[in-house]
């Protein structure tokens, strides 16, 4: 079995399984956290309506565009492209048929190309924003530069593999780079901050329920630390 076949076959299945199981683990852990939070506090009503409204508001954050509008526009485009292109690209249809056995609709090549270019431009803009914007730069660590690049790479390599005339590498090499970089993303998704792809629905749940404190917890903390339920102030 050559390297590309191995990457497309067993390695793909292994990394995809790792991603699915890893993301499921996060969903289960976070769901458990929410249930545990509510069980331990007497204040148990959850404003689901407000949670859905707030989540929807941030999926398309038009009401938040007044501050850093270009960054937010780029972020929307980047996320839309990252979600749509890998899922609905005609060349990926066989992956869906081979794996879960579903036949998804596909997008035209022209549209896929346009969306990919837009996504790449948005991704490069976001990376540039992190590098050249002082505030963003001061907050960023190495991982904050690495992750966007890791996510952009499969998109860029896939685009170049589809357009061999522009590719600096032979088709086979570019395709190998595309598959391996995609598989790296599969591994990064559950192990880095990219996990927000599945934790996003929990963001607003947390915001709504996290001030639900536990009766008696302060005294138990004091008991653990000082052997008495008295506060630290005495």
């Amino acid at each position: 079995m050559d390297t590309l076949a191995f990457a497309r076959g067993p390695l793909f299945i292994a990394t995809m399984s790792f991603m699915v199981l890893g993301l499921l683990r996060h969903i289960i852990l976070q769901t458990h956290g929410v249930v545990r939070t509510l069980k331990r506090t007497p204040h148990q009503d959850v404003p689901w309506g407000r949670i859905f409204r707030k989540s929807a508001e941030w999926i398309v954050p038009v009401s938040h565009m007044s501050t850093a509008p270009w960054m937010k526009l780029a972020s929307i485009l980047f996320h839309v492209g990252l979600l749509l292109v890998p899922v609905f690209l005609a060349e990926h249809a066989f992956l869906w048929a081979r794996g879960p056995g579903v036949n998804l609709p596909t997008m035209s090549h022209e549209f896929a190309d346009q969306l990919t270019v837009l996504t790449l431009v948005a991704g490069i803009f976001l990376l540039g924003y992190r590098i050249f914007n002082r505030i963003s730069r001061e907050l960023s660590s190495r991982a904050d530069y690495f992750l966007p690049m890791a996510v952009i790479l499969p998109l860029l390599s896939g685009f170049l593999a589809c357009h061999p005339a522009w590719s600096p590498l032979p088709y086979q090499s570019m395709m190998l780079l595309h598959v391996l970089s995609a598989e790296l993303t599969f591994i990064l998704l559950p192990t880095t901050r990219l996990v927000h792809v599945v934790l996003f629905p929990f963001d607003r749940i947390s915001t709504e329920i996290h001030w639900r404190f536990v009766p008696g917890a302060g005294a138990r903390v004091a008991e653990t630390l000082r052997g008495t339920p008295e506060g630290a102030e005495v």
Partner: protein
Amino acid sequence: MAQTVMHEKATIRPQPESEKPRFPYHLINPVTENRVQRFLEAFAAIIEHTNYKPVLDQYARSSMKCSSCTTNCPVYTATHDAKDMPCYRSGLLLKTYRRHFTIAGWLRSKVTGDPGLVEEDIDEMANLFYRCTACKRCTMECPLGIDHGLMTHLGRWILGELRIVPKGLEVSTIEQLHGDSGNTSAILPHALLDTLEFLEEEIEEMLGLKMKYPVDEVGREFVFFPAVSDYLMEPETLMGNLAVIHAAGDADNWTIGTGDFDGINYGLFYSDHVLERVIRKMVGEVTRLGGRRILIGECGHASRTAREFVPVFGGDEVYPVINIMEYTLEKLEQGKLDLDPNVITDRVTYHDPCNIARSGWIVEQPRRIIRSFIRNFVEMTPHGKHNYCCGGGGGTVSVDELHDFRMSVAGKRKA
């Protein structure tokens, strides 16, 4: 030993580095030995016994450090200091959590050699968590909904277990929970009675009407808890409260309790443990007096703590909580208050308190009251849920050493 100092941002005459004390506020007997270990022990105990773990997991896993929060933070927009970024400040706690309380963090430390929490981190947290006014304006702009106000609260609680708490907050709390007066301003019951008598005389002189503050009356609907400092510093507010309640026909329907007459709860700012005990004290007083509802004065944080935490910490007795502005509007709309719109002709605006406005709880009520007796009302921009902090939020108003920071940084921007 108490340690003194102003934060370098707020110091008029720069001090040499070697002379600078470690904290921008006075402390009472802070832990000085094994601080890293003690910090981590406190963090571990809090994680074990509370609901913070899922929130820390959520934030530590998904925080993208996109810097959106900075555009809304009044402190950062005043200083442009990277350390005043909400994400940076919360990141100190999240980094510690990730490193010491997650398997991934532990594994990463084996690869990178990250030593984890060090003494300097504790000092930095002690400084930065008290440069946050906990106004929660940043949360509105965070795509992932990270509540930096909660992180500030948690960080301060952990520090509090090392007795790294501004003296102004801790002394008041000690008096409220353990002192003879039982309140943050150390007003003894007989002093309260003298003050109330004085205010009754003042109001009679002003309005020509005899009104009484009911004290320790049993079986009344409302038990009243203002910020106790109002008895010392804002008597006009209390006179106004009396006049409104009297005019609304509730003169015999409320009482002040001498067992507890303080709505202030500094636990909101630095400790769940303090928060719970102050709430239980309040609920105990309402039960003693056979009251049915808790009426809070104009104070924002007192209103929020009572409303949010009486249902959590109040035990079986979940008394409904109402703020004086809600009460006033209710009576106004029932036609029980007749206000003359021609008395005040000056231009007036209203600055929303973060603790009651940010959630959207009390935004319209004060405006409807104001418009009923003031014709020249103008709004600031922004206002309501989007207001700017006055600068005294998060308890900083009660810490004298933070006065300059409050006036020149945290409260610099109002609109």
